[in-house]
């Protein structure tokens, strides 16, 4: 848990300045960086093995059980034979969309084949529920252990309190921060901006607990250990639906996360999550100088 990088703790006074470049500061703890990359790997495998598992029964329901003789379906991916060949469809809350080629029907070796998510989105690429489960549950353990280790370390090293917890001043800055993001105007500071705090906090303290707990709810053994957990989420099939929705939120977070890195300066952003060092904006020039020039 002890940080070995220079300066021992990231603080804005660890500044390496030179005449012509804005200052570089030590921004990310080693522990933050290690856990970040373990999550990245774990979530990659969890997502693709999860889609493999989903493909075994690509329908989601609300309630305790799956409606076969009654309807409690909220999403279904399926295929249908037509005169012009198989058609893949996705039905969301009863509304049907043709998704041939991506969802419902994939083209495998030039042959349209019924399949939920396409081969490029699953591990393994072919249908193999058993292997998908083996991969999924291994990385589920990796994710949960890393999250607990991160939480413990981040309480100790102050990352949680100082960097992630939104303060009153952050909330007051929220409208201006949203505007900055919309205008692609990024400020590089040691502190996270308000939207970053909300996004990272939301993923770590809302989406992660929900996706883990709904995952556990799908285990019949866990349901006997924690008898109220299935009812808490409105039944096992609702828990499965929530698990899927949290996955969609994580994918959405990942896409925005990547776009923001590209927009804010990928080299600098990547350096800070790999080495810990981050170039912040140069302090704005003193007003006296400007006044001196105009005079």
């Amino acid at each position, binding site marked *: 848990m002890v940080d070995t990088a220079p300066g021992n703790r990231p603080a804005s006074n660890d500044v390496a300045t030179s005449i*012509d*470049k*804005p200052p570089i500061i030590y921004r990310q703890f080693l522990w933050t960086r290690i856990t970040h990359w373990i999550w990245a790997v774990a979530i990659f495998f969890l997502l*693709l093995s999860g889609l493999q*598992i*989903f493909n*075994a*029964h690509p*329908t989601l*329901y609300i309630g*305790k*059980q*799956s*409606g*076969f*003789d*009654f309807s409690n379906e909220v999403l279904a991916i399926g295929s249908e034979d037509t005169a012009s060949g198989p058609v893949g469809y996705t039905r969301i809350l009863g509304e049907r969309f043709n998704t041939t080629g991506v969802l419902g029907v994939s083209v495998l070796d030039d042959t349209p084949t019924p399949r939920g998510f396409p*081969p*490029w*989105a*699953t*591990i*393994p*690429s*072919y249908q*193999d*529920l*058993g*292997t998908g*489960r*083996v*991969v999924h*549950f*291994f990385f*589920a*353990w990796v994710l949960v252990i890393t999250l607990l280790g991160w939480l413990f370390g981040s309480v100790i090293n102050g990352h949680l309190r100082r960097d992630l917890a939104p303060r009153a001043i952050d909330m007051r800055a929220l409208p201006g921060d949203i505007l900055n993001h919309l205008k*692609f105007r990024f400020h590089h500071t040691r502190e996270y901006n308000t939207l970053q705090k909300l996004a990272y906090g939301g993923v770590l303290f809302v989406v992660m607990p929900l996706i883990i707990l709904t995952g556990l709810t*799908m*285990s*019949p*053994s*866990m*349901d*006997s*250990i924690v*008898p109220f957990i*299935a009812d808490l989420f409105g039944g*096992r*099939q609702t828990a*499965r639906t929530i698990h899927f929705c949290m996955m969609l939120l994580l994918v959405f977070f990942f896409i925005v996360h*990547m*776009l923001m890195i*590209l*927009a804010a*300066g*990928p*080299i*600098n952003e990547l350096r800070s999550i790999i080495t810990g060092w981050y*170039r912040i904006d140069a302090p704005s020039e003193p007003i006296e100088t400007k006044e001196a020039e105009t005079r």
Partner: protein
Amino acid sequence: MSRFELSRRTFLTSAAVGGSGLLLASCNVFDSLDRDGSVRDVLESANNLTYRVHRALSNRDALAEEFTEADIRQPQRPNGTTDPDDEDYKALAANNFADWRLEVGGLVEKPLSLSLSQLQAMPSRTQITRHDCVEGWSCIAKWTGVPLGLILDDAKPKPSAQYVVFHCMDTIDQDLSGSIKYYGSIDLIDARHPQSILAYGMNGRSLPVENGAPLRVRVERQLGYKMPKYVRKIELVDSFANIGMGHGGYWEDNGYEWYGGI
């Protein structure tokens, strides 16, 4: 000033390039996770961890949730074999299973051979439970049968017995040596769990063929593939080495985890 400045146009271009790169990253890179590689062994070790943690957290007799009659909203969805094509099975079914016997053997003091009417004369348990399939769906039904613990009490397992293996009558697969019959296994903790029953009744009627007549296993804290149908023999063993491909069940021989509590 060497700051990385980005126009909207550059941003959108790089985003599009990055996005398409992700799409192209096809995942058949990971298709080499074949059944018996060392990477596979590491990944599968997580199942053993799950099993141990569940057993450590769980009271031995912690019950699976039981539901009410109002929750039975549809017939039990059948899966796997639903109409065995085996001649011996069809002959037994034609006679309403009057000639069928449940054999109990292996590591027991007193091997048993029980008819359906003998099983039905034993104390029974009825429970409305949720069947969770490994595929992801659930279905609630009412099951009636003999607690497996009572059968074990009669047969008296030897101290060396570790697992209960269920041998079935239905052919689930073919290989070079002939037909493969379904089989599966559980540990003695699940075997003696109060809700573990050998069910001959479902939703108030006798067990239908598609759901495993004349007798199927209910192990309510595990997934459906751990509850064999069309059972003909119960064998107590200390190892799976000499059964099937040695992994403790038909699906286990095909890459599924032996512990199906998750």
